[in-house]
C-alpha cells in the first residue's frame, strides 16, 4: 500500500467593513481589506490575528514536524495558495521560512492551482483561470523553486471542462474528491483518467481524510482516541493501489488544538506506516507506478465541500449566484485594479454568503467574520460596486 499525505495551505484576504458611505478616497487596498485588527469586521477574525494565531498553533510547530520527517526521506505534498504566501510575508514570515526549508529537502511535491484560490474554473471564459494558474506557477518557482506537474483546483472543484483545460495547460494529473457520485461503484484507491483525454485523476479518500480532519478530537466518536498505530492499520487494510489523504493544514494544531494530541499523532504516523509496510509517496510518484483503471465522466462540478460535495457551498443561493455573476462580468483595465478584482475572487468571500442550515451552516458561520450572510452580501456588493466605479464603468 502507498499513501500520499497532502496539506491544503490557504488564507484569504478578508474584507473590512465597507459601507456605501465609506471614504472612497482611500486607495482600494486600504479601503477594502482589513490590514490591521483595528478596522476588521471582528477583531478575532482580522487577517493579522488569524494568521498569527495559525502561525503559532500550526504553521510553525506542524511544519517543524513535517520538516523532521522530510529530512529522513519521508514524502509529503502541499498546495499553497498565492494569498497565503502574501499573508505570510506580511503577518508571519517565519511560517514561510520553515515551509521553504521543507521545500529544500526535495522530498515534497507542490501542486498547481489558481493563485487566488478562486472559482475562475467555473467562469464562462477560462482565460482568467489560465492566467491565475500561470501566476501560481511563477509563485512556486520563485518561492519554492518548484515546477508543478499535478494540479488541484480550488476546494477540489472539478468537472470535465476543467479537466480538459488543466490537461491543455500541460499538467499530467489532477487531484479530485473521491465522491460516490463521481466514482459510482469504483474505489477511491485507484488511478483514473478524464473522459476522452489523458489527464490522470487521483481521488481523495474522504473518509480516511475526515477521520483526521473532522473526527480526530471528537470524544463522542466510537474510534476516539485515534492513535497513529490504529490509523496506519486502517490504511494497510484498505484494498487498492494507494490512499490519498488531503486535509486542511490548520487541522494540525489549530482546528484540533495541540492538547488533542494531533501533533504527536503526526510525529508518529510515518513510523507506523513504515512498520505496516506502507510507502509514503508524492502524487507524482504514485501516478508513475500504476495504470489508470477507468475513465471518469464528471459533467457537473464536484468539490470536497459540505455534505453535498458540489459547488453549492459558493453558488447555492441566489445571493451567491448574483454576486458571482457580477464578479465574473467585471472587466478591469488597469493592473492595479485587476489585482484588487482578483483578491475579491478568492472563494472565501462567496462562502460567507452561504445560508445553508444544519451542520454545514454551522461550519460556515464558524469561519465567517460577518454577522450574517446578508451582512456579508451587502459588504461584498458595496466593494464590488465601488471597484466598478473606480474602474469607470
Amino acid at each position, binding site marked *: 500500500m502507498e499513501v500520499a499525505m497532502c496539506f491544503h495551505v490557504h488564507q484569504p484576504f478578508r474584507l473590512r467593513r465597507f459601507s456605501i*458611505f465609506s471614504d472612497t478616497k482611500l486607495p482600494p487596498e486600504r479601503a477594502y481589506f482589513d490590514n490591521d485588527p483595528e478596522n476588521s469586521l471582528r477583531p478575532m477574525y482580522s487577517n493579522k490575528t488569524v494568521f498569527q494565531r495559525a502561525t503559532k498553533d500550526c504553521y510553525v510547530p506542524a511544519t517543524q514536524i513535517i520538516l523532521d520527517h522530510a529530512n529522513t526521506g519521508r514524502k509529503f505534498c502541499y498546495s499553497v495558495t498565492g494569498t497565503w504566501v502574501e499573508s505570510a510575508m506580511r503577518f508571519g514570515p517565519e511560517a514561510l521560512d520553515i515551509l521553504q526549508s521543507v521545500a529544500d529537502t526535495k522530498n515534497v511535491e507542490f501542486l498547481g492551482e489558481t493563485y487566488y484560490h478562486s472559482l475562475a474554473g467555473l467562469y464562462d471564459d477560462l482565460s482568467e483561470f489560465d492566467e491565475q494558474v500561470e501566476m501560481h506557477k511563477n509563485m512556486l518557482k520563485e518561492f519554492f523553486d518548484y515546477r508543478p506537474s499535478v494540479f488541484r483546483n480550488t476546494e477540489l472543484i472539478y468537472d470535465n471542462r476543467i479537466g480538459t483545460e488543466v490537461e491543455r495547460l500541460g499538467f499530467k494529473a489532477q487531484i479530485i474528491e473521491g465522491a460516490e457520485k463521481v466514482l459510482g461503484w469504483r474505489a477511491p484507491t485507484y488511478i483514473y483518467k478524464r473522459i476522452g483525454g489523458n489527464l490522470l485523476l487521483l481521488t481523495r479518500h474522504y473518509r480516511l481524510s475526515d477521520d483526521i480532519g473532522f473526527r480526530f478530537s471528537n470524544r463522542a466518536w466510537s474510534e476516539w482516541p485515534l492513535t497513529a498505530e490504529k490509523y496506519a492499520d486502517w490504511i494497510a487494510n484498505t484494498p487498492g493501489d494507494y490512499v490519498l489523504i488531503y486535509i486542511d493544514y490548520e487541522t494540525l494544531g489549530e482546528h484540533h488544538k495541540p492538547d488533542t494530541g494531533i501533533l504527536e499523532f503526526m510525529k508518529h504516523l510515518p513510523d507506523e506506516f513504515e512498520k505496516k509496510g506502507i510507502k509514503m509517496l508524492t502524487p507524482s510518484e504514485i501516478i508513475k507506478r500504476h495504470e489508470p483503471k477507468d475513465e471518469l465522466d464528471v459533467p457537473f462540478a464536484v468539490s470536497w465541500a459540505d455534505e453535498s460535495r458540489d459547488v453549492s457551498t459558493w453558488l447555492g443561493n*441566489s445571493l451567491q449566484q448574483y454576486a458571482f455573476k457580477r464578479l465574473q462580468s467585471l472587466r478591469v483595465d488597469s493592473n492595479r485594479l485587476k489585482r484588487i478584482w482578483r483578491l475579491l475572487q478568492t472563494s472565501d468571500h462567496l462562502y460567507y454568503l452561504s445560508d445553508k442550515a444544519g451542520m454545514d451552516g454551522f461550519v460556515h458561520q464558524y469561519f465567517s467574520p460577518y454577522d450574517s450572510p446578508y451582512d456579508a*452580501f451587502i459588504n461584498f456588493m*458595496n466593494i464590488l460596486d465601488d471597484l466598478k466605479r473606480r474602474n469607470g464603468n
Partner: protein
Amino acid sequence: MIGWEFPPKSVGGLGTHTYELVNELKGLVSISLVLPFKARVEGIRVIPVPARYLNPYKLSFSHSFIDSIRAYNENIVKEVLGKRVKFDIIHVHDWIGVEAGIRLKRLTGRPLVVTFHATEYDRTAGHPWEVIKEIEQRAVNEADGIIAVSNLMKEELIKYYHADPSKIDVIYNGINPTAIDGSSKKGLFGRKVVLYLGRLAIQKNPESLIRAIPLVLEKEKNVVFIIAGSGELLPRLAKLSVDLGVKDHVIFTGRVTDQEKEFLYKISDVFVLPSVSEPFGITVLEAASKGVVPIISKTVGAGEQVDALEVDFWDVNKLAEYILAVMKYPVLGNHVKENNIRRLTGLSWARVARRTLKKYKKVLRWK
C-alpha cells in the same frame, strides 16, 4: 384566562396573541376569558370586569394608578369566584392581572401559567417602574409555568428576574396562514416605500429611522418613509424630520385601522423596527407575511422566527445602508421574501395553541 387588550381594540402583540390563541384553543379546552370590557367571542365565556380608572389604551401613571390596579385585581377574583367559574388552570398574560392570578391560585390550588409578552424593562427602555417590577418578580416566583414569546424574552426573565429556566417554554407568536401573500406590487406612485408601524414610543426607537432618512436620501431620492402609529414621540419626530430637512419624504399617518395596516404592508418594500428592546414584535411577522423585507434591531425577538436584516438599534448608518441595499439589489429582497414565505407557512396560531396546551398538561402533571 386573564387577558387585557383585545381586538378590535388592540394595540399590540398581547391582544392579537390572546385573540388568536383563545380561538384556536376553544376547540380543545373550555375557556373563560377575563377582559376589562365587554366582548363577544363565539364559543368562549367572556367575563367582563370593568377596570375603573384604567384604560388598556391610555395608561396614566398617577399616584392612584396602583390602587386602581389593586382594585381591578380584587374585582377579578370576586367576579370569578362569585360566578362560580370552573377552571383547572389559570393563565395570565403579562403583569396587569398577575395579582388576581396569584390570589386565585392560593384560593383554589389551581396552577398558574404566565405568558410574558414583554417586561417592564422592555416597556421603559431599561428604566423599570419599581412597583411593576415587583409584580413581575412575583409572577416569575409564583408561576408554575412560564411562557416566553421568544428566546430573547426567556433570557431577559432569567437575567432580570432570576427565573428558573426549567419553568420557561418559548412559544413564538403565530401568523394566520391565509394571510400569507407576498405577491403584491410594491411602491407608492412609483416611489419605494419604507414603513414604520407601531407605537411612537422610546422603546420602539423610531427616531433611529428618522435619523437614517437623510443618509438614504443622499444616495436615493425616489423613496418615501411612512411612519404609522401614534404615541408620545410624535411631535418630537415631526420636528426632527423638519430639522433634518426630510419632511417632504416622510408621511406621518397617525393610528391606522386594520384595513389601512393591510394596505401599508401591501405597498411597502421595507419594514423597519429599530426597537431598543422588543421581546417579539408581531408586526415583523405580519410585514414579512406580505413580502415586506424586515430590517430590525438585533434586540427584536421576531428575528428568531423570520429572515431579517439585523442592525444594532443605535446604528443609524447601517440602517440606512441596509435600506439602500434592499433598494439597490432586488435579489436581496427576493431572497429574504422567499425564505420568509416558506418559514411563515409553518407558523400557524393552531401550532401556538397546540404548544400552549402541551404546556398546560406539563404544568398539571407537575402539580
